[in-house]
């Protein structure tokens, strides 16, 4: 049930973002872009949540029977997330997607900052933020 609600939320945000990108105002386009990037970030996070809900901190007790192996990915036993303690029934969320989404958030912060400054300069230069009126590049 939760997964369905999450999927619907992601789809809605993505749809609203797409709608905003197709508007004529530069600022609306930028808001649409950041909505889409949020939807994509939620998608990435949602791929890492299996059945587990604990934070992915592995203590000594979970290392399995003395083998010390942390990494198992045997394809014959089903596709596992890369970092799963051997002999443990994955009560953890996948830590890697959280690292990935952090990177993606930082990158989208940088691009949004850049594009907002660009929009400001375009407004200074052209005196408008309407896409239809900035058509100096032709041919």
């Amino acid at each position: 049930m939760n997964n369905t609600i999450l999927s619907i939320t992601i789809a809605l945000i993505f749809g609203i973002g797409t709608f905003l990108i197709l508007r004529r105002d530069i600022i609306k386009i930028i808001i649409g872009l950041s909505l889409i990037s949020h939807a994509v970030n939620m998608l990435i996070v949602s791929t890492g949540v299996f059945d587990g809900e604990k934070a992915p901190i592995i203590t000594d007790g979970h290392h399995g029977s003395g083998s010390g192996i942390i990494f198992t990915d045997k394809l014959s036993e089903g596709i596992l997330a890369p970092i799963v303690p051997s002999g443990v029934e994955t009560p953890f969320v996948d830590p890697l997607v959280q690292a990935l989404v952090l990177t993606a958030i930082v990158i989208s912060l940088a691009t949004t900052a850049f594009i907002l400054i660009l929009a400001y300069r375009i407004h200074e230069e052209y005196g408008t933020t309407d896409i239809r009126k900035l058509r100096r590049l032709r041919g």
Partner: protein
Amino acid sequence: MNIQEHLPILLVATPILMSALMIMLRSRPTFQKTLNIIVSASILLMSIILLLQVWNSGIQVYEVGEWGKYGIMLVADLLGSGMVVLSSGISLLALIYSLDYIEGKSLNTTYHSLFNLLVAGLNGTFLTGDIFNMFVFFEILLLSSCGLVVASENGGVTKISDKMEATFKYLILNIIGSMVMLIAIASLYATMGTLNMADLSVKIATLSDAGTMPWHIYFIALLFIIVFGNKAAIFPLHYWLPDVHPTAPSPISAMLSGVMIKVGAYGILRVYFLVFKDALFLLQPIIILLALITIAIGAIAAVGQKDVKRLLAYSSVSQIGYVFLGIGMGTAYALAASLVYLVNHAIAKSMLFLTSGGIIHHAGTRDMHQMGGMVKSAPLMSSMFLIGAMSIAGLPPLGGFIAKFVLFDAAMLGEYYLPVLIGFAFAVFTIFYMFRAWLLMFWGEARDSEKYGPYSSHGLSPMITVPIIILAAAVLILGVYSEPLIALSSEIANQLLDPQPYINAVLGGSVR
């Protein structure tokens, strides 16, 4: 400590370190320039050593942090290190060129730093073995190139508002492309549980052999066409390129058209031939179709242009179509041919863009109808543009002829008769628009000096002419002595079609 083991990470880390250092050195412009040239030259040297090392002793794998395939990996195979040599060679020459070409204020503050970030992004994209890192390096490339496009040049022929509008278009389209790439990566990770490309390849091959390939793998593969097609500007996604590449300063246009759009071709080669081998039967017709439309659209649009750099940009669109045609055919010979084409186009097109910078400097405008008779007042630029135009048009004895010959030969051997016919027809278009540009600019009568003002009598400095001459020499050498390049390309094509050594090199070392 053996320095040669650490070459892959040095190629990425040195430019990033330097980009931070360059900002701090902005009060000492001369030192900054010298340092940046030394750094670029040493990156070129390192990349050549890396290529020789890969050629002699096989694929080099560098595990950052020694986490094996679960961490970040840099993998230097022949394709990656070859592309690094190409990009660092062109970037060294473009850097030397830009020292005199870019306006002093813009050069001292941010230019060097962003240029180094661009180099780091290129090297990282070519060397990474991890698909999420490829996304990160794409973003580095995107932001640094956006900053460079708005740098102002000495002549001041391009208005800043044009640059900003072009950058806005470029940025929006590429952010959407990056979002598509993230969606594809997230779906891939959710299915396969890994991001390492060699590991992905093994897992997808296992699933395919067992006949339990999830159906959405094919859709992920299709999403990657959007991502890399957007980077390479193939047909439905090409329309940002003719705005961005001409409005950038000439050395940056040379980098963008010479190397940046090849990143898309590299991505297709790497991701499809390594990860999605089993989906290739579905993708190849699509790539061939898009490539043919790209060739046609670029060539037709280039014929009517009056702006010299816009013509060259449309020509880039058309030429990248030929590279994708070779990739789409997918035999060993066709892949080698498309790599030969890629190298030749990279060198010839960056030389043409650098030359167009000299022409603009001389004429003070980008409009070809306002030029004319420049063969007398700018003989060097005229002969250099002629060499580049002949190479792009595919006339012997220059590099472009060999490239087109090998590509069409491969297509004939693979019995792709209709693509050959279309490609050949638009190769004739190429000859037409290239020589029309040359005639308009250099032949005929000198322009009306009352209406447009006289040509600049200011000569071009050696900083501007020497890189152009070096690249022209490279074009000539690739034309008359092309065996080493063809041998290297065939070897790369064999490696691409048989990724087992790559997989062994990446996964063999990781015992965890």
